[in-house]
């Protein structure tokens, strides 16, 4: 019974931590090369 309670507690804590990380965490952003160029009159010919 004691082992079961500990297992349940561990699973609950693990789920809570995973949920927090999942919702609040950031996976970071990969690098990129290049830039955005605004279109103007000549691009619309």
């Amino acid at each position, binding site marked *: 019974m004691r082992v079961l309670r500990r297992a349940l507690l561990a699973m609950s804590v693990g789920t809570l931590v995973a949920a927090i990380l999942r*919702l609040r965490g950031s996976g970071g*952003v*990969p690098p*990129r*090369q*290049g830039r955005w*160029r605004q279109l103007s009159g000549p691009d*619309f010919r």
Partner: protein
Amino acid sequence: MDRIFADVTTVAVIGAGVVGRRVVRQLAASGLVDRLILGSRRPERLHGFVRQLIGVDVEVIAPGPLPSVDVTVLAQPAGGHGELADEALGNGSHVVSVSDSLKDVQALLDLDAVATKAARSVIVGAAFSPGMSCLLARHAGSRFDRVEEVHVARMGTGGPACQRQLHRARTKEAIDWRDGNWRKRPGGTGRELVWFPDPLGARDCYRAALPDALLLSTNFPDADRITAKVAGTRRDRLTAWLPMLRSPHSDGGPGAVRIEIRGVRNGVRTTDVIGAIDYPSAVAGAIASIATEWSILDALPSGSWSLGMLDDPVPWLRELEKRGITAAVYEGISRS
């Protein structure tokens, strides 16, 4: 009565939310409209707004039969746009709809025969996405010899009604055009990191019930894939199944659209990326206003169509540029 109003250009704007008010302001300033009829569920709330409109006769009406006018702008929340457009066509009016609901868009496209017979325009999805997204896809696609894939991504919303519609769309089935057939996919799936124009940058985007693919498929019938996704946070995905937990913002901007087109140009397989960043409500207001003004001038084709079905989107993009709404192309490589 007909004789009295023969030379009076009248426009009805149904819906006085964030987008509806922007349309009204631009139309009042255009000099093309003599009389504006503003439809609202709560007319008593519009006294202050109406007082700001100078040089145009304004009438505020409550929900009921649509008035007989030259152009009817449907800027109310999504749902029922098809029925209202049918009624407006019966009154001899051009119709401009800003709805981004798949059901509304399909219903409006189904009015093509009625609109063509009546020699009136039904302009579908005259907003940010669809609308600006369709114009950009059409413009970028015209530079290819053969378009193989079109991928639309958007972030941001207009007013509260737009945010509620997006909340509903996140859990509904998305439609993707794949190898000549429509495929239904669950909303909230298909995570993809998309680089929007700076400063918004990279955002995760997911499938949702968005109408862009449906509206673009006519002009890219040979494309293997046409998809549309929307940016969302993990919290958006988790709470999409629940009622909105907090009141929507008064304006869900700034937002962005990004269109990636893959195809063949001069025998070489090429990918072009084009996008725009602005307040979705401002762009929707400008596009709906331009559509209304050009309908008044009889400069648009009859029938039911979207901006992605235009032969030449350049006049629209030029007019938007004049109004301060610009597009951008991505030059470089993004690794995601």
